[in-house]
């Protein structure tokens, strides 16, 4: 019966096809808008491709001639055809050696044995934006102007992002209560110096650069680049997640997130995703929103989400795909973003975590790549992807909004996207430079070091034998990636694995502002024993030194700071010496360990035109210590040392001598103590280019390869 039914269906469809094909009627020339679209769209694409190929065909000889001339210059003295640099942010040499010894990292072991493995000296301080800026420019921070994530405004002692400044449009038109922006946002890169791929590009060597930190805003050069760390979210922050909840709790998140109420309307739950400030009402604090609905199913394990006009099902404990959201401001203004929803709970309460709203790479409102079409190309090829600089939401795990598994799932989803981009770049860059930085190593170590440390305060309630092997798995995963890359390269390709710094436990917090207060260097307003964020209760007229950010210590210098009291010159130098003497070797009485192992005078550490923007001293914390969360935010507490109870349990913002990075290479490197500042000159030299005179780094002696596959 079934067969006959099937047969009948076949006959029916064949008959229909027969009519269409065999009985020509003039109306057959057009079979509806569907066909029209299909034909028009595909033929339009082909037509554009054809047109472009004709154009390319005619200009190709000229371009090739130009390229040959450039290439002769570039590759004339080149020792390599291609350089592949994989950056693993925070990959630690000691852990790597340990895991190699345990047989977990066969590919890195092969690289070490047949090529080179060294500890890579990092920058002062050992912080990613600083180290990666040095990596790309080949100069010390005094020449690239990045000293920390944050810099301070001398006029008000408040912080600002050190890498980029985003301002509203230059001109606007006031219409009643609305301000219509005339033009786009103004973005100014604060990192100085020239990335080495600019030199390569100008010499005719093609470069694909993916997610190297501090490349926002993207700079123009002959190659393609996708910006990494420091790209903001759509709100302009470095990542603001959102917890939509029916729970009536008023607690604000300490960092990185907002709580949004979920309202019940019958069987439907309604909430919204907060977006950027209304561009038509700048300064009003009015934010744009995208509403969404949640319709739980009867089982209570799944719900149907409606966001704008999109609907999708979501199970409890699962992430959605990237969902495009458009924040509409009226008059045609708005912003395009993407975010992911994570359904935490449906009963008894409803809770949904929403990632920070990332700039939509398919239609970026701010440039996040060079050329701007590169981010679009990647979005079309692989689908939407995280664009936020700090895309892995460490704050959400710190605040217990995400659990370990949800955080890891987010990290590895982003990582998988990055891998796809890398392999596409490898395919597209058969000659030239392919550089890609993976942040997963940094974020996962920050958040899961507590399971590596036998007595970490943040994991004391979990028996040591039950600690998950998160970091071990992370390194094994990176090793597998390296193995796949090694299969794609030939003997003319230089493969370099670098990390900007290593990692150590962060078990104890040091509130340096508290120490400065208790030792008479920082004064509070009368009657105050502590200060709120950003020196809220600090009496600047009696304050000689203060700290904000991760490692910088500043003197309150007369004529430099708004209310400075220390005279520059001899007085300032004396104060620096005094502070260095007192802080170096500072003991944590509770643990009996050294909390600070070095204090460095920035005048001695840095040289260059931007030294004036540097802190006065850099504090090198000891193994197991770091600046406290409060101290980083300019808060003064009563305790100097305290336990770190947050999931963020590993760190590297300590004495740079304790956290070198890694350097693996498929060639022999003669230098015993290479530094990250040497990478740029080494790559330029291997491509046969002359080194710019301002470089601080020195090229390594790299000898011919033994085939490492």
């Amino acid at each position, binding site marked *: 019966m079934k067969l006959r039914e099937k047969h009948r269906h076949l006959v029916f*469809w064949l008959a*229909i*096809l027969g*009519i*269409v094909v065999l*009985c020509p*009627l*003039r*109306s*057959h*020339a*057009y*079979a*509806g*808008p*569907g*066909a*029209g*679209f*299909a034909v*028009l*769209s*595909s033929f339009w*694409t*082909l037509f*554009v*491709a054809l047109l*472009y*190929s004709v154009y*390319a065909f005619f200009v*190709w000889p000229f*371009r090739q001639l130009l*390229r040959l001339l450039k290439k002769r210059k570039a590759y004339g003295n080149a020792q390599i055809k291609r350089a592949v640099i994989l950056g693993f942010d925070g990959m630690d040499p000691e852990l790597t050696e340990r895991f190699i010894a345990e047989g977990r990292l066969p590919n890195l072991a092969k690289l070490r044995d047949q090529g080179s493995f060294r500890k890579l000296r990092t920058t002062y301080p050992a912080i990613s934006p600083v180290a990666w800026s040095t990596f790309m420019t080949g100069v010390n921070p005094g020449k690239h102007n990045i000293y920390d994530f944050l810099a301070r405004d001398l006029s008000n002692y408040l912080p600002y992002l050190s890498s980029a400044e985003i301002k509203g449009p230059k001109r606007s038109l006031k219409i009643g209560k609305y301000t219509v922006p005339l033009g786009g946002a103004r973005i100014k890169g604060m990192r100085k110096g020239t990335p080495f791929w600019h030199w390569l590009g100008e010499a005719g060597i*093609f470069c694909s650069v993916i997610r190297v930190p501090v490349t926002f805003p993207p700079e123009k050069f002959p190659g*393609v680049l996708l910006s990494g760390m420091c790209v903001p979210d759509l709100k302009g922050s470095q990542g603001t997640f959102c917890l939509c909840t029916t729970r009536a709790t008023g607690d604000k998140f300490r960092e990185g997130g907002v709580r949004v109420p979920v309202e019940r309307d019958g069987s439907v739950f309604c909430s919204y995703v907060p977006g950027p400030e209304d561009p038509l009402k700048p300064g009003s604090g009015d934010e744009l929103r995208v509403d969404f609905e949640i319709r739980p199913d009867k089982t209570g394990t799944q719900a149907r989400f409606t966001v704008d*006009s999109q609907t999708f099902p979501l199970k409890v404990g699962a992430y959605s795909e990237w969902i495009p959201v458009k924040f509409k401001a009226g008059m045609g203004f708005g912003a395009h973003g993407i975010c992911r929803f994570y359904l935490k709970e449906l009963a008894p309460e409803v809770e949904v975590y929403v990632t920070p709203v990332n700039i939509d790479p398919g239609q970026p409102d701010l440039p996040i790549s060079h*050329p701007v*079409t*590169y981010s*679009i*190309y*990647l*979005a*079309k*090829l692989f*689908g939407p992807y995280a664009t936020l600089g700090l895309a892995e939401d460490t704050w959400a795990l710190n605040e217990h909004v995400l659990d370990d598994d949800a955080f890891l799932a987010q990290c590895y989803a982003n990582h998988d996207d990055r891998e796809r981009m890398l392999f596409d770049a490898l*395919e*597209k*860059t*058969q*000659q030239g430079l392919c550089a890609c930085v993976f942040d997963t190593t940094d974020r996962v170590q920050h958040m899961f070091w507590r399971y590596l440390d036998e007595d970490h305060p943040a994991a004391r309630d979990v028996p040591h034998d039950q600690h998950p092997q998160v970091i071990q798995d992370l390194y094994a995963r990176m090793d597998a990636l390296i193995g796949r890359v090694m299969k794609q390269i030939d003997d003319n390709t230089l493969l370099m694995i670098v990390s900007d710094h290593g990692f150590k436990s962060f078990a104890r917090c040091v509130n340096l502002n508290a120490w400065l207060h208790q030792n008479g260097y920082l004064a509070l307003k009368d009657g105050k024993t502590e200060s709120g964020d950003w020196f809220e209760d600090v009496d600047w007229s009696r304050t000689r030194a203060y700290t904000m950010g991760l490692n910088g210590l500043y003197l309150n210098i007369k004529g430099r700071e708004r209310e400075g009291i220390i005279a520059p010159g001899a007085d300032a130098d004396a104060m620096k010496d005094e502070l260095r003497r007192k802080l170096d070797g500072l003991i944590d009485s509770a643990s009996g360990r050294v909390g600070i192992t070095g204090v460095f005078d920035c005048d001695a550490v840095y040289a260059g035109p931007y030294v004036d923007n540097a802190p006065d001293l850099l504090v090198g914390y000891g193994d197991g210590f770091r600046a406290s969360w409060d101290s980083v935010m300019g808060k003064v507490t009563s305790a100097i040392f305290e336990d770190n109870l947050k999931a963020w349990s590993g760190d590297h913002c300590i004495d740079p001598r304790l956290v070198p990075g890694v350097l693996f290479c498929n060639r022999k490197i003669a230098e015993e103590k290479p530094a990250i500042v040497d990478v740029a000159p080494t790559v330029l030299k291997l491509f046969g280019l002359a080194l710019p005179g301002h470089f601080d780094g020195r090229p390594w002696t790299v000898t011919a390869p033994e085939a490492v596959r």
Partner: protein
Amino acid sequence: MASLGINLPASIVAGISVVIGLLMVVVFRYTSDQKAIHVAKDHLKAHLLALRLFQDQIPVVIRSYGRILLATGRYLRLAFMPLLFVSVPLILLLAQIDRYLGSIPFEMGHPFLVSARVAGAEAFSDATLELPAGLAATAPAVHVPAENEVVWRVVAEREGSFLVNVKTSSQASAKQVVVGSGMPRLSAMRLRGQFWKRLLYSAEPALPQNDVVQMIEVQYPSREIAFAGLEWNWIWLFFVLSLAAGFLFKSILGIEI
């Protein structure tokens, strides 16, 4: 309507185009794999962008051309099934509309041809045309043996709907002929058998199966519709307008095509 300055045929075509444009995109939406079409289109765009981004990498450019072709093929394959769902009812519908909008009736005093195809030599030589009052033959019948067809030239003396009869020695077969103006339902031919052809071309009942006459046909003049300063065949006007409507509705409804 014409006296009010309204171009009725153009208005009808516009109305039909908008309705069908909407219907078709909705049908397309529910009969297609929207996500796969979205991905296929995105891949097409990506490979196009690759041509520009990596223009100096000749192997990349060549690979991108290949991928554009592959992606186009994938897109056409994905569009084929919904196309089938959309095309079949649409073709039948268009065939019906074509009877009103495709042609105009004969004008009074203007000659036209009536042709009949018959089976058998006897019937071929015997066939005659019987005309009602108001229609008159203006020339003797022309026999085309190779086609088994007999052709008469006829002129209308007044407006109206007439039945002409093709007579053979044994039978008489009628065919409607319309003379005048407006948008009456016109049938260019009357057929024996040939179900699909009748469905698409004829607006009259089938000729009896035992009839020696296989087909009677008249050639109504094509209708030209004035729109946007141009003279259009209705099907091309429908093509343009329904496409525009489809684009509009697909954007409004967020349908991937």
